[in-house]
């Protein structure tokens, strides 16, 4: 007691540390982030001040404007961005080539997701509940989801909870910070900024309210748990290295005789938190329930963007922060990747709900991504980035198509309801078959090029056994994708089967975006590969 008080007094008696002069903030570099977060704040104000009937159009306009504006700001910055990347905001944000690639991916995927979120034609009035406070099963609840397929011109009459737009922007802004964060504290704050809106958005489905709310609670509880893991890991690493900066942790781990317990404990907890966000098995348990229960546009947003952000952060942490200890954690992550692929592939086989099936497929894909992430060469980083790009767009479009197949109860997600879809809606079935082929990694789709770059990076890094497991897992996942194609094309349609809604402009645009990118990256991947290859993480 005495001693600690004394040391505190000694500390206080010292001269105050010299005032540090901070480097000026590099606004052009972080402008895209600022635009998204700023627009999110403006969106909240719009929600407060605009009358209800004007909110939807104002929010959609603002959100799309912010996304396009951020994209333009990034394009302008990239014309003369230093190749090695640069740090700003007291070195807490690293704007380097991978970060810019991830931002571009996030903004484009965010655009597609927002288009789906804004759609009011597929589900009359939008996929979101009129007011989140309506309790399931009440009269108001029944009223807010009138009719199976009422006329489209009535769509605007059904209200929706328009807070979802600023929430989306907050989540997106959080993701952008998350994958550019150069210290763990910034990363943690970003993790919360991206997660909290997502928890809310999961619970906003217009139909099947209980399922949706259940998924929100589940996601929140498990997400809070994983945040705690992350934070605890951060604390241990800080205790080990005396700094939260990734580069300092790497330096400390490279040459020190401090207790390894802190280092390994911190590393493990930190990575668990990150793997949870990336829905990598065995930290995947939330994924199927949340994917199934959330409104489909939100599922698309989560599946595409959260995955990108999480793996962006995993890449940065592994490459910048933990590079010097790679021999310690690499074996463990080998195992994790295998577990994730096996869980995704095997449990995916048993699914009867299409959203759950895609969820398990995303777990298998997370395993493939993790293979790329633990190849610490520049090829590993660029291949993982490319894979994220391909996977995001394919998944986005796939959920867009899933939202179109509906019956009186909303989306017809049970696989048996998809039987004979090709006869009812040849175009939708063809698009979905193409997307499934892309997920399976059939050549001439982006999925194949993605798998190819990841596997070739892994092979050249001596991970042949892992690649063989991945190839077998790919074949197993192909089986359940094929099963859907068999159902759509080779089975007779059920007499009371679902119908396929002709989507409005927004969802059509989102699906088209996803399909075109999937095809383009399969046919002419060179430009995106060059972009992903453009540079590595800024290490200081």
């Amino acid at each position, binding site marked *: 007691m005495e001693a600690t008080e004394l040391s505190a007094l000694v500390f206080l008696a010292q001269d105050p540390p010299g005032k540090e002069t901070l480097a000026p903030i590099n606004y052009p570099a972080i402008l895209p982030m600022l635009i998204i977060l700023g627009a999110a704040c403006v969106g909240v104000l719009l929600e407060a001040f605009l009358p209800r009937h004007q909110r939807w159009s104002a929010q959609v306009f603002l959100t799309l404007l912010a996304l396009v504006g951020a994209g333009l700001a990034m394009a302008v910055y990239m014309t003369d961005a230093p190749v090695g990347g640069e740090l700003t905001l007291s070195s807490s944000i690293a704007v380097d080539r991978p970060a810019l690639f991830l931002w571009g991916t996030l903004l484009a995927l965010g655009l597609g997701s927002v288009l789906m979120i804004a759609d009011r034609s597929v589900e009359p009035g939008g996929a979101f509940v009129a007011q989140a406070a309506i309790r399931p099963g009440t009269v108001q609840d029944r009223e807010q989801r009138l009719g199976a397929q009422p006329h489209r011109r009535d769509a605007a009459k059904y209200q929706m909870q328009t807070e979802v737009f600023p929430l989306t922007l907050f989540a997106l802004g959080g993701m952008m910070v998350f994958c550019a964060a150069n210290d763990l504290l910034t990363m943690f704050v970003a993790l919360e900024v991206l997660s909290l809106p997502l928890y809310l958005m999961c619970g906003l489905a217009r139909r099947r309210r209980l399922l949706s709310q259940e998924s929100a609670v589940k996601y929140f509880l498990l997400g809070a748990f994983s945040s705690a893991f992350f934070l605890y890991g951060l604390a241990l690493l800080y205790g080990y290295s005396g700094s939260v900066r990734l580069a300092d942790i790497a330096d400390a781990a490279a040459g020190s005789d401090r207790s390894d317990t802190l280092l390994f404990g911190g590393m493990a907890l930190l990575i668990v938190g990150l793997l949870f966000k990336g829905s990598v098995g065995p930290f995947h348990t939330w994924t199927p329930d949340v994917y199934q229960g959330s409104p489909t546009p939100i599922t698309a947003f989560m599946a595409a963007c959260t995955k990108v952000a999480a793996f962006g952060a995993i890449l940065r942490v592994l490459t910048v922060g933990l590079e010097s200890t790679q021999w310690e954690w690499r074996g463990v992550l080998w195992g994790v990747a295998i577990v994730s692929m096996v869980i995704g592939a095997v449990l995916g086989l048993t699914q009867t709900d299409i959203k759950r099936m895609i969820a398990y497929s995303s777990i298998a894909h997370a395993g493939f991504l993790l293979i790329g992430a633990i190849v610490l060469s520049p090829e590993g980083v660029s291949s993982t980035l490319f894979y994220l790009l391909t996977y995001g767009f394919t998944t986005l479009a796939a959920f867009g198509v899933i939202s179109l197949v509906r019956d009186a109860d909303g989306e017809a997600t049970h696989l048996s309801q998809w039987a004979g879809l090709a006869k009812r809606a040849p175009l939708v079935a063809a698009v979905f078959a193409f997307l499934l082929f892309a997920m399976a990694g059939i050549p001439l789709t982006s999925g194949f090029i993605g798998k190819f770059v990841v*596997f070739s990076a892994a092979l050249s890094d001596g991970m042949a056994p892992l690649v063989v497991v991945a*190839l077998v897992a790919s074949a197993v996942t192909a*089986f359940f994708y094929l099963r859907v194609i*068999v159902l759509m094309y*080779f*089975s007779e349609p059920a007499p009371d089967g679902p119908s396929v809604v002709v989507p409005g402009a927004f969802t059509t645009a989102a699906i088209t975006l996803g399909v075109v990118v999937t095809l383009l990256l399969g046919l002419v*991947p060179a430009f995106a*590969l060059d972009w992903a290859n453009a540079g590595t993480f800024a290490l200081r």
Partner: protein
Amino acid sequence: MTSSSGAALLVALLLIPLVGAIAVVFLRKNDTLAKQAALAFSLVEFGVAVASWIAYDPAGARLQQHFSLDWIPAFGVHLSFGVDGIALVMVAVIALLVPLVIGAGWTEKLPAERTAGGFLSLILLQQAITIAVFAATDVFVFYVLFEIMLIPMYFLIGSYGGARRQYAAVKFFLYSFLGGLIMLASAIGAYSMASDELGEGTFDWATLVRVVSDAPLSNQIWIFLGFFLAFAVKAPLVPLHTWLPDAAAEAPIGVAVLLVGILDKVGTFGFLRYLLPMTPDASTTLAPLVLVMGVAGVLYGALLATGQRDMKRFIAYVSIAHFGFIALGIFAFTTQSEVGAVSYMLNHSISTGMLILVIGMVIARGGSTLIADYGGLAKITPALAGVFLVAGLASLSLPGTNSFISEFLVLVGAYGPEPVYTILATVGMILAALYVLWLYQRVFHGPVRGSALVNVTGGPGTAVAPEVGARRAILDLSGREKLVLAPLLVLVVGIGFYPAPVLDVITPSVEATLDAVGVSDGGN
């Protein structure tokens, strides 16, 4: 872009069926027009293939009519195509079979709600991709085509096939897809060897052959196993064959012709084009493995063919036996056996293609694929019986038919280095006579009987006088059917008596392949 003389022919060969496939999709509202357009495209394609054959100079460079375009510079991937003698005969035979398949299926009834346009479009697409597979000279492009080749076939079996088509289509796809993925791992392995050695990655076939064939045996074995698995599934060699009987039994007749006659040859073609030159040391080291699988296929296929009750499954097992012979010829590493194997690839396409088409004509008459549903058909349809017999005899390699010369060369060539395997394989020839002639006897001779025929002609169990059957429902070969079978008949006999034009085209490429393996027996 780089190209050599005659490249225009190859470009045309690749593009005509592709354009045809697209055109036919747009004509699918009108069945007749779609059929006519598809036939026209396939005939033009055949004409170009003939021109390509004539333009090919057997004494010239290994790869001719070569052209190359940049595709993915980051990995040194080029869209490069060219033909050698082996590829040329395969391209020619697919160009020959597709118009015949279209002609044979002219009056075939498709499942409800399926259009002839959709079917023929997939056939033409399959043709385009398969020709491209044989012509690809970039390993990456080869892999890409090897995998997407599955997609039209998957839909052809799944959409137009028999009762268990879903199962057969998925099984077919997964077997080949898994094999292909493992080949991809080997292809990437070869690629990283090349980039280690040359400083920049490439998938160019000739370069990879040069780099990988210099690698130590242990590395070669891994590369070998990946490629081999993919090709052995495709070929198919026992025990990786189980998808073929299902796929062939469920596929419509025309599709079965393409599947057994052409697609499976990609496997044996892959042995020759990729496996032997790229991994010569591993190929000679592991040859016993392949020989065991090949001879097992010869015997197993023959035994199971004898026991089949379904004519389409019968064909599948016959083919498995023949693929065993081809594998034996390839992995005996003598010029004779190798030339025999390659000409067997061609002759198997012709004779088995013909046998499947004839069986399809029998099935079209009787409405059943079961052998037990037929009997005494020769009395009603003598011409059909005659053609069936010729196709069957060609299949069992009777001297004077096209397959004889191939089987003979394989056995003569393989006997020197591998006497035990060769003697065992010869037993397969005897079984071949058994299963073919027994099938012929059951279907065409004896009293007219069988539920399928009797249903048309009278009550069950009653023998029907030939003139009744002929008058009522069962007709002999129509003019269209004769037109379809005539070219094949001519080739069976023609190549049987004068195989030189085929052997001349094949031999230089085979010798080049053997040179690459480093096993030289000094020519013939």
